[in-house]
């Protein structure tokens, strides 16, 4: 009952203060808007392209039509004879040439057996534009043929690589800052103002007082972390010039595991900041300690993001396990045992920190030392 009353008090405090709710949700909204606007600006359509396209096989009517459509968009196209496919592909990949069009023999005479293949780089704006224009023309002709497009790198693959490298770092940073914003004020603030001592005079168990802080604060932080997470995940494809549908590339299980990780990672960070805040004499002191910790966590997650494979031992290290976990999860290569051990390790560390905070709340030197 006492634990419930302590938890309810924190919820009452949070949900009756609109400023706290806004502070918690705003980062996610701002990130989404900012990244989307940045993405729009970066990937805004340029006015003209000068396409350089290799052509193999004869299809003068089709190429004329493509030329006409391209001209309508104030673009130009230069047709180049294909000599070596490998060299041409390399040039397309490096952005020197736009695409490679290959028509089957007698393309325009034998429509039932006609086929065209398009090689292009979807990450190249010109390549994507040319591909779209060509497909539109071919579809409009009305003759029977098949189109084989060959993107040099799959959009999903590129998206995954980007997400895999950047997302864990961004998520860890946002989770940490979400936890920091509510925990410092609630724990160190209450200690500094003397309101925590008033609760210590009651017969509530110290462990309940510790849990009565950590449980609700973890819930609020989770809200903030999820807001930031959604902001990043939904806006990242825009920022990278990819489609939002790319997110569907991850299965439902991936999102469940990712959620499970956040569930286990948020209380750990909240417990860590709560313990530091209990030990600190003021909000200022707690902020100073937590800022150092945040830099450490950021560096650790950033370095890990760009390191090659780390051994299985990483699952036992907090933060490191979260980043490695997320990387492998997004790469679709996370063994379930690793996921469960990481979540279990995080919960174990959280329990240890709750115990540490309980001890601190019982310590006269920490609570009442000048």
């Amino acid at each position: 009952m006492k634990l419930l009353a302590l938890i309810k008090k924190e919820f009452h405090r949070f949900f009756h203060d609109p400023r706290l709710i806004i502070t918690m949700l705003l980062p996610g909204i701002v990130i989404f808007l900012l990244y989307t606007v940045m993405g729009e600006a970066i990937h805004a359509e340029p006015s003209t392209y000068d396409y350089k396209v290799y052509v193999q096989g004869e299809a003068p009517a089709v190429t004329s039509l493509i030329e006409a459509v391209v001209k309508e968009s104030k673009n130009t196209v230069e047709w180049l004879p294909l000599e070596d496919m490998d060299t041409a592909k390399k040039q397309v990949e490096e952005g020197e040439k736009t695409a490679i069009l290959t028509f089957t023999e007698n393309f325009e005479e034998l429509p039932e057996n006609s086929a065209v293949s398009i090689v292009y780089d979807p990450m190249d704006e010109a390549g994507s534009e040319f591909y779209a224009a060509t497909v539109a023309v071919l579809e409009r002709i009305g003759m029977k043929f098949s189109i084989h497009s060959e993107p040099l790198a799959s959009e999903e693959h590129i998206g995954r690589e980007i997400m895999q490298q950047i997302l864990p770092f961004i998520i860890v940073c946002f989770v940490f800052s979400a936890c920091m914003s509510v925990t410092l004020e609630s724990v160190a603030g209450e200690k500094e103002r003397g309101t925590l001592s008033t609760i210590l005079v009651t017969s509530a168990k110290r462990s309940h007082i510790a849990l009565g802080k950590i449980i609700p604060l973890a819930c609020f932080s989770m809200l903030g972390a999820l807001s930031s997470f959604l902001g990043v995940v939904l806006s990242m494809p825009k920022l990278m010039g990819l489609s939002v549908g790319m997110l569907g590339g991850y299965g439902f299980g991936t999102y469940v595991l990712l959620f499970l990780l956040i569930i286990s990672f948020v209380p750990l960070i909240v417990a860590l900041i709560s313990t530091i805040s209990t030990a600190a004499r003021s909000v200022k002191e707690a902020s100073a300690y937590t800022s150092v910790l945040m830099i450490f966590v950021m560096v650790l997650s950033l370095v890990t993001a760009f390191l090659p494979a780390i051994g299985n031992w990483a699952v036992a290290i907090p933060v490191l396990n979260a980043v490695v976990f997320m990387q492998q999860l997004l790469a679709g290569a996370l063994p379930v045992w690793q996921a469960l051990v990481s979540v279990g390790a995080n919960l174990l560390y959280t329990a240890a920190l709750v115990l540490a905070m309980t001890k601190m709340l019982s310590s006269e030197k920490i609570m009442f030392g000048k």
Partner: protein
Amino acid sequence: MSEEIVRAEGLKKTFLLSKKQQKIEKTGETRRIAVNGLSFSAYRGEIYGLLGPNGAGKTTTLRMLSTLIRPDAGDAFICGHSVVKEPAKVRDEIGFMTSELKLEGFFTPDYLFDFFGAMHGVDKNTLQQRKRDLFSKFGIDKFAEVQVKNLSTGMLQKVSLVISIVHDPTVVIFDEPTNGLDVLTAKVVTDFLAELKAMGKSILLSTHIFSLVEKLCDRVGIIFDGKMAAEGPLEEIAKGDLEKSFFDLYYSIKGEMV
């Protein structure tokens, strides 16, 4: 003699002196004795006053009795429970009010009363009845939904007092209960202390106001430099004039020390 409710046995408390403090006081001592072997008893239905100048050790003694800090030596028993070995049981028996303990400014008196009631395990019906009685007695009912941060000093002191006794404790410990209050609020508080006594509660209060002790206390303990200089029924200690007796004692001890 009535039932012994509070018994302090040789309470001792020392604090570490910081380097800065040692420099200011020009001393090489690393520890300061705040309370030195204090013993006294308080009984059911009486008000016990701890009288002494600033820094004598009154607040430290009350903090030990309320289990906020542990004695370095000695022990104290509240309703038979040791403050050292059974602090949780002691906390259920006491109501402690001191300027050191603050109420969160965001909440209203109404919410805080319910919250601290739950912290002490008071059932809902009893809590609502006590809230009605106490809020009405202290005139808090009109301010029940005003955030604590917006209350006046006097109203805040009344709210703190009411919340400290939300669970109807056997022993009420008040550290300087009338400090900073206007005469009207101070009278409300002193009248209530007398009322609590009439209800059979044991009250321990620390003060340096002679008139308050003379008006309210049955027994008194005078503390100088952490030691009990005199202790007993008010009439025996005051000998007709508490202020004179206090200063006689003070100068006799200080004289001996010099």
